[in-house]
């Protein structure tokens, strides 16, 4: 609890960080709506395009910010000091997860609100809430991924090579742009390792008129993946810079 309280206090003290992490996705979604309007295609439903894109933005921003914040902690020496003061890896990971989940919750709400305002999603309240659950779960997976990746970077600069490595596969292999069935067999196989694939599966089920219960299998994969990645993050959390 102490790590979570401390991280929340840091977030409260670093308003610029909180503003950037919520305003940047809004700007990106606005640009997306401009792009969509310019595209002017009646062939694809707005919700099938915009909602997965929103989930991807949550994924991207949460992942990058978490990774950078944790590496910053390592570089500043506070991570090592936490360890030497007696905080254990599980406590540290759980504390960060708790605090940043609150931020991700806020971020997901803002993104979904903006999506609803700028696009004709036609989801209704129930569908919108179901999409929110998926986005929130995706944010938790992204937090876990950010934590895991931060364990392998010695400074902020080393986070950036991991960005395309982690963020490009979801663009092509999640079903967001091209249906997974249309991909070559090897790419379909790789897509099983892409968390966004499961989020997009569930979102498409909702936008096609179904509900969470109809997509329980990919839905359950999101918390399962989050747990596996968090376990790996706690196991690989190092004291040494």
């Amino acid at each position: 609890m102490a790590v979570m309280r401390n991280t929340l206090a840091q977030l409260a003290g670093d308003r610029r960080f909180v503003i950037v992490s919520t305003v940047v996705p809004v700007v990106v979604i606005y640009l997306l709506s401009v792009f969509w309007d310019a595209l002017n295609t009646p062939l694809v439903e707005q919700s099938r395009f915009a909602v997965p894109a929103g989930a991807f933005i949550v994924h991207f921003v949460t992942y990058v910010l978490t990774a950078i914040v944790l590496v910053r902690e390592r570089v500043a020496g506070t991570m090592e000091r936490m360890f030497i003061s007696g905080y254990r890896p599980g406590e540290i990971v759980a504390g960060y997860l708790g605090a940043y989940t609150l931020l991700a919750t806020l971020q997901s709400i803002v993104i979904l609100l903006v999506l609803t305002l700028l696009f004709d999603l036609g989801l209704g309240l129930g569908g919108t809430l179901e999409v929110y659950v998926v986005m929130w779960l995706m944010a938790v997976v992204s937090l876990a991924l950010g934590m895991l990746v931060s364990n392998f970077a010695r400074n902020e600069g080393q986070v950036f090579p991991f960005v395309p490595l982690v963020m490009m596969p979801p663009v092509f292999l999640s079903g967001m742009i091209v249906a997974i069935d249309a991909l070559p067999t090897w790419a379909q196989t790789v897509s099983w390792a892409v968390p966004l694939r499961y989020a997009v599966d569930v979102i498409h089920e909702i936008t096609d008129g179904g509900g969470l219960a109809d997509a329980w299998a990919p839905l359950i994969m999101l918390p399962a993946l989050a747990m596996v990645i968090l376990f790996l993050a706690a196991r690989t959390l190092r004291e040494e810079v």
Partner: protein
Amino acid sequence: MMDDGLVVVASGLVKRYQSVMALAGLDLGIRRGEIFGLIGPNGAGKTTLIRAIVGALQPTAGSVRVLGLDPIADRWQLRRRLGYMPQQPALYPDLTTHRNVAFFAAAHSVHANSGPVQRTLELVDLVDRADDPVRTLSGGMRQRVSLACALVHEPELLILDEPTAGVDPELRATFWQRFREMANRGTTVVVSTHQMGEALECDRVALIRAGKVVAAEGPGRLFRSRRATVRLDDGNGERRIDLDDYERQLPALMHESSAARVTIEMEPLDDIVLRLIREGEE
């Protein structure tokens, strides 16, 4: 079990980073309740030794026991009993002084609004800045916050890595006064520094060079053979005499001399340490 009252025992300690040998078979024993200085030039291995003591790195070879425990295998047990102040302040700049201290206190189940937190802030003289974010404090104040974080849980063993680096002389004197008070209460204080003058404040000092202890003595014994240059002026001109052992030779010289004016230039402590290190290596 402690080895003969020694709080820290290092034997043949080696730490190698690829081609760099940071610790090269270091032997050391630190006694309970003493202020023990680790003195040496930059890159001598002081910080590596400290990190081995606190269990932040795995030695390549050799062994180290701290409070009778293995710093790696028993790290969580050990860390409840030691306080550590790293070289860089390692604080949260956006959080207040009080919150920083309270956070590190919480790791030892010391409550944020408890007596120890308040007492520690008083000890480092930061009560009036307790509610200010650390980023608004001066460098010296940040060092004091960092010190407070290390000693808020009243550890048996306090390990300070260059605590006075970048600190003005007045604050440095205050720090050493605090260290002495803690040692008088039974806390073992291990301090690394590259400021040779601080060796005089310690009960014992280890001179470290290239990952080895080249001398470990009380500062009185260590600096006993201090060199000096004496200038004697009898009115007809100045005579310069170099003394190899100032303490022994000066009384005799003064007894023989009839000079009207005597100027003594003591060998700087830095030079003594470097000379002792060279002699130790030979």
